[in-house]
């Protein structure tokens, strides 16, 4: 390999057929005289612009598109040299760092010697050793292309905003499960908004036996084992639900506040009394109708109860998880969109309450397809305000445009699976911790279960990994009509 050109932070390297280098590989450009080296990453491979190549191709097809049959008698065996030159490729590389005095430096302000520099492949283990990506709490993400294991530090997810994205069936949920299970191994508290019910069986191995995580997985299904007692509910939480999930107008919300206070003063906060109070409240008929319709929505959700004993499991599970680590799986599979929003509003408010009162340390929140249950105003809340309370979110989505641009800008880690759609790649490339060229070039060619890892977990050295397999019962498989036929 030979250093050819540098433009901005892009380096072009001439590579010959005997040197197998692919997108995502790291190269080390060493300049011994300068006692420095550049770490660059291949983000694209192109044919080298060899003079005369067009003529070469044209003359091989001069007979109406059919190659002329013939024989080359090449006694000096120059043909392999011709092929060698013709197949030379140009590696488009992005400068990632400089090594100087055995330490990494993000500076790219120097230029290595074109004639004297040597270019060689930098193995991922050597790079991770330099970058110190593994720490005291290692999480094995998977294998890199050169079959070495990529290990990240769980603490690099702590206090961070993460995004897992890619088109469907590429392995996003699998990675999310892997991260989640590793976090609970280190006694972290994890809450998962499980939209498709695919996290429920994480406590079982693929053959249905209990695994090491079994006692740490707490599945809460709204309206079944997960309910909210009206008496324990704060007025502002219920008002949030009424205004944001059930779109109660402001005037009606004011009347509801009065009704609620009146019932609370009389210690009569239960579903029946709430209904009666709305019915008998002296107010405009339209307001009453509005309140009644929301009241029935709350009652019909089945999520609210008068019995305090029915509404203790969430807190119990969270406190248990605080002690020994665990995951609270909120199973939203059979929940209607409105009920989903009610549950999420309630849960987030509850979590903030527990965190502000220091009853919980911090939690890792995994939100699958959050746009289906998270109201608009919550996005900023989650990544800014709630982060300070100790809610560290990982968004998992196959529709990257459903996550707002400012979320991408603040994302600390992005786990990017394959995308072929230009628009999707464009959206993801807005993330602050990555350059658009890397995202667009590498993500497009990622095979299934391969992920481009970007951000703090890899110390800003984008790495492609094949996500490690998990011996857990998977529930996220698509139910197929022709399954038996195939």
């Amino acid at each position: 390999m030979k250093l050819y050109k540098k433009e901005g932070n892009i380096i072009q390297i001439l590579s010959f057929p005997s040197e197998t280098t692919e997108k995502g590989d790291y190269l080390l450009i060493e300049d011994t005289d300068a006692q420095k080296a550049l770490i660059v990453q291949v983000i694209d491979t192109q044919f080298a612009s060899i003079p005369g190549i067009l003529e070469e191709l044209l003359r091989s097809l001069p007979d109406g598109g059919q190659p002329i049959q013939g024989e080359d008698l090449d006694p000096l065996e120059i043909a392999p040299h011709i092929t060698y030159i013709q197949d030379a490729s140009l590696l488009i590389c992005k400068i990632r760092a400089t090594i100087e005095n055995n330490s990494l430096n993000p500076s790219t302000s120097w230029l290595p010697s074109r004639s004297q520099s040597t270019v060689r492949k930098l193995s991922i283990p050597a790079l991770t050793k330099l970058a110190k990506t593994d720490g005291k709490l290692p999480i094995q993400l998977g294998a890199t292309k050169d079959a070495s294991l990529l290990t990240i530090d769980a603490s690099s997810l702590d206090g961070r905003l993460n995004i897992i994205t890619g088109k469907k069936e590429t392995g996003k949920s699998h990675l999310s499960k892997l991260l989640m299970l590793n976090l609970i191994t280190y006694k972290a508290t994890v809450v998962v908004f499980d939209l498709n019910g695919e996290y429920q069986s994480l406590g079982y191995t693929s053959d249905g036996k209990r695994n090491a995580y079994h006692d740490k997985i707490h599945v809460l299904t709204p309206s079944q084992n997960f309910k909210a007692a009206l008496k324990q509910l704060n007025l502002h939480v219920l008002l949030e639900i009424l205004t944001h999930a059930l779109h109660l107008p402001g005037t009606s919300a004011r009347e509801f506040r009065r009704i609620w206070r009146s019932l609370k003063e009389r210690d009569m906060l239960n579903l029946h009394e709430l209904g009666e109070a709305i019915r008998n409240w002296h107010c405009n008929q339209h307001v009453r109708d509005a309140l009644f319709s929301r009241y029935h929505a709350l009652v019909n959700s089945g999520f609210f109860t008068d019995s305090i004993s029915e509404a203790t499991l969430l807190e119990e599970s969270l406190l248990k998880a605080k002690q020994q680590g665990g995951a609270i799986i909120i199973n939203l599979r059979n929940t209607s969109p409105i009920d989903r929003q009610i549950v999420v509003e309630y849960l987030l408010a509850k979590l903030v309450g527990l965190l502000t009162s220091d009853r919980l340390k911090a939690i890792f929140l995994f939100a699958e397809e959050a746009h289906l249950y998270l109201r608009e105003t919550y996005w900023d809340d989650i990544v800014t305000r709630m982060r300070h309370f100790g809610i560290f979110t990982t968004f998992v989505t196959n529709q990257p445009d459903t996550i707002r641009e400012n979320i991408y800008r603040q994302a600390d880690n992005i786990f990017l699976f394959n995308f072929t759609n230009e628009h999707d790649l464009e959206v993801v490339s807005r993330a602050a911790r990555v350059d658009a060229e890397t995202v667009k070039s590498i993500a497009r060619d990622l095979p299934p279960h391969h992920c481009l890892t970007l951000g703090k977990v890899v110390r800003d050295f984008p790495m492609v990994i094949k996500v490690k397999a998990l011996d857990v019962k998977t529930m996220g498989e698509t139910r197929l009509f022709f399954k038996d036929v195939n």
Partner: protein
Amino acid sequence: MVIQQHTITTTQKYNFPHPTIDTTLPQRLIQLSLQTLTHTPSISMQLNQQPCNIESHSLQLKPQPILLKPKHTPTIVAAVDTSNIKIGETATGILIAIRGANIWKQNHIYRYIRLGPFIFHTTEENKKQLYTTLQKAYLNTTHMQTTPTLQQMPNRIANLLEKWLQTMLTKTINNGLILFDGSLTSGTPDTPTLHMRETLQTARKHNNTILAFSKMTNLRFNGHLITDIYPKHTPPYLIEAIGLKPKPPITLCGDIYVARLTKSNCAFRLDIDKELSPQQKTEAVEKLLGNDIITQSYPETLRLAHILCTFTANEVIAMQHYIQRKHRLRLINRPDMHKLLFGPFGKGETNQ
């Protein structure tokens, strides 16, 4: 040191019967190529330039063109061309590469055999020996009127290969048309009359007709190049040129025609074996029209021969790579003094 011997079996690949073929020349080419490269630590050249030793003021064009009708009698059309290129300079000489191609059309299919590239390191010291050895291998003579200059060597060596390829075709094809690039003028340092006559004779013996197309000509009629004259006739036709008197030792072994074979503006000087009857000559061109694709008055077979042997830039780089890797020869990048002195106004030494 042992010189590797390569066995060349080119003629066995032809689809038509052939006699025992003399392979001395290619063997000598390989031998000498390796020898010149071992014994020492761009521009394409156009072969077959027309010699100027022809008095063209006496040249006349027959007023009545020979009108042609394509004859579709199945006939093999074969062509020969070679190419040479200077691929670099060393401290003591120049590195040149030559390659030749034979192409033939049979049953509507084009096939080819390409020979080379052969790379030679020619120096002032070895050029005489190199050329003499090759000349002996092909012409069976060491007689040389003048020693070629170093700059003439690429042309001369390529010419020897071309002559050998032409001879091979005349010996291996029967009842065919053989297209040469250039003319049938002999008596020049690289085309002895005796050998040109032998080639034509061999071709006749095998019932072949040689048609030599010149892309460039200096012959003029009434001050105009003969290929620039447009009689009021619809192509295809031939116009015979008569009255041409070459100065000795230049000999014209063919009759000269202006061939306008398609309705384009292009016309070429065409030399056809003198010994053939006018009817045979006309019939040969008509068979060419009926058996080959003619574009811009030029036969496709000859065009392909040229294309196949021409060196492309990446091949030159590959040959430089071969020389440096395999023979450890160091190429010198001499500064172009024109560019150096005159900057953007210097056209370069090769384009003066």
